[in-house]
């Protein structure tokens, strides 16, 4: 059993490390592998650095490393949130944004940008907007009495559409020079992500918390009545999933804008490859989503350097053919 879990997770861990190394080694500045290795060694061994290496240090430790780790965290958070959402709504087409959360976050972030506020305020605003949206959907569904996943889905979709309209309005009314920044945020952008530790910790904590719930999630996926008959406390578990998925998505969107596609496709791909045991799928999503986004971000910042692409474009361009290939092969 442990072998069944351990082998694929081990592979994914190796893939994650490999893509971290790639992310640290590639960039607009041409650093040789030797230089990168020296920086890593120096950082770990805490040797005093000399002048010649100062630039390499800044490049690797101040720019590439935080960005790569943020990419990993955001990718993992989105993939796990997507997997949870798919179990909650019992719908393989659900993604983390389907309940309107990214819309609320976008409104918060865009409002901060319009007000000319800086990076920290934008993140805080985004998180606030995400919370408001989550509570709104929660309140609307809870208040109406009989609660089913399809009701939750419908409410969320409508709320998301509402946020979409407000966002369009904001884009239409904003001064022209602010537009590119706003659009980049909406497309998903890691170009200034510098504080990876909180999303990483959140990802780790989530995996630890969610693992014991894994089998209950497997049972829940067979239907609420079946699950209840097998001893699962269905309603509390569903609310728990909703809150956890919302928190993960809020953290991801706050760090990097609304990056699409990762939350929908990564859980799907993994299910095609690894089956449906959530105890394997959820940590696998964390690793695979993180790896995918790290690679996508590395491409986004180097493909047409010095021009920068929004990473959401790359995830779609990479993800779609891969997914189609897997779908075709699994037939």
């Amino acid at each position, binding site marked *: 059993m442990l072998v069944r879990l351990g082998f694929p997770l081990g592979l994914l861990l190796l893939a994650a490390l490999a893509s971290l190394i790639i992310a640290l080694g590639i960039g607009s500045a041409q650093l040789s592998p030797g230089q990168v290795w020296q920086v890593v060694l120096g950082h770990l061994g805490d040797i*005093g650095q000399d*002048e010649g290496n100062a630039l390499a240090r800044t490049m690797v430790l101040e720019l590439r490393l935080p960005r790569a780790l943020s990419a990993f965290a955001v990718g993992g958070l989105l993939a796990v949130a997507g997997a949870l959402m798919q179990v909650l709504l019992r719908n393989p087409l659900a993604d983390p944004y389907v309940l309107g959360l990214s819309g609320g976050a976008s409104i918060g972030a865009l409002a901060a940008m319009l007000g000319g506020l*800086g990076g920290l305020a934008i993140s805080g605003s985004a998180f606030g907007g995400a919370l408001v949206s989550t509570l709104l959907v929660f309140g609307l569904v809870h208040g109406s009495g009989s609660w089913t996943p399809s009701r939750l889905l419908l409410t969320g979709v409508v709320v998301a559409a509402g946020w979409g309209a407000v966002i369009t309005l904001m884009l239409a009314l904003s001064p022209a020079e602010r537009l*590119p920044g706003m659009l980049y945020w909406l497309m998903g952008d890691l170009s200034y992500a*510098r504080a990876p530790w909180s999303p990483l910790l959140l990802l780790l904590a989530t995996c630890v918390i969610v693992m014991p719930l894994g089998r209950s999630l497997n049972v829940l996926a067979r239907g609420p009545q079946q699950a209840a008959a097998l001893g699962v406390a269905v309603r509390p578990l569903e609310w728990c999933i909703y809150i956890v998925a919302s928190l993960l998505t809020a953290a991801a969107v706050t760090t990097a804008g609304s990056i699409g596609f990762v939350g929908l496709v990564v859980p799907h791909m993994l299910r095609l490859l690894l089956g449906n045991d959530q105890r394997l799928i959820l940590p696998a999503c964390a690793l695979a989503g993180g790896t995918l986004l790290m690679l996508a971000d590395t491409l986004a910042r180097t493909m047409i350097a*010095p021009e920068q692409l929004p990473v959401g474009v790359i995830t779609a361009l990479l993800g779609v053919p891969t997914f189609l290939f897997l779908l075709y092969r699994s037939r």
Partner: protein
Amino acid sequence: MANKTANQTLFKHRGATGPALLLSRLILSLSMLSGVVSNAVLADDHSRCEMDDRSRKVCLYTPAQRIATLSPGATELTYAAGAGDQVVAVVSYSDYPPEAKDVVSVGSHTRIDLEALVGLAPDLVIGWVTGNPAEQLETLEALGMPVFYIEPRNFEGVASAIERLARLAGTESAGQAVADNFRLRMAELAAQYRDREPVRTFYQVWDEPLMSVNDAHLIGQVIEICGGVNVFGEQARLVPRIDDEAVLAANPEAIVAGGMGEENRHWLTHWEQYSNLTAVADDNLFFVPPSLIQRPTPRLMEGSQILCEKLDIARQRRERD
């Protein structure tokens, strides 16, 4: 590389041991997070300090030798200040002066390739308040680079920016001359044209969506010194988005447009279908090369000259009728 460390006002690499370095970095990060970056070096005769357009004091120990300009306007202003030889990084569309095209580009003004920029080790970064991404410039400051923000909103602002950049770059004599010349020329134009018969003018910034400017915009101020009356001057937004109907209702005497490129008149031909417009009836459809009037740079003198002359033509055509 040696110059770079000489100008690292905040982040000093040399000689610090492990824990002290860590502590100073911690204090640095905390001060960054509080959002107030004070670059002030207290009471030091050797430092050159200037106020930027965000009312922050930016100080350097020695004249900037490696300047990064993060907008096409900033590039032009820096060259105008006489510091062209010291520019090591620009962004896309920095096409004037022609020498700027040979300088390494580090992305666009909306998304900068931070790695490329850091790799060029600039000792002064010229940012644009509303146009550059705030978070990326904050990252640069966190890495210890002095960032000087400019945002000229009027003619005096343009001249002042040139002077301040010249002082930071140590090219005071060249820059001062350009700034003074600019002030003189704009005053001359104003004296010549401002008090003439007002000409109702519509300046078209873009065609889809249709955009104009209000009186607070730099171009609006140019219209004013040329003796024009901006038909959309009272609009609340700096760059209002309007439609054809609004233009028809305002019925300007003269329509001035730029166009996508430098030689493109097709925005003006769009108006010819409305034969009732005064501007169309009198054939007052004028083209002013956009880079001469839409950038807050010394070339504004040329653009203003052209605009004033065009409005004068309209004036004469009216008197002829």
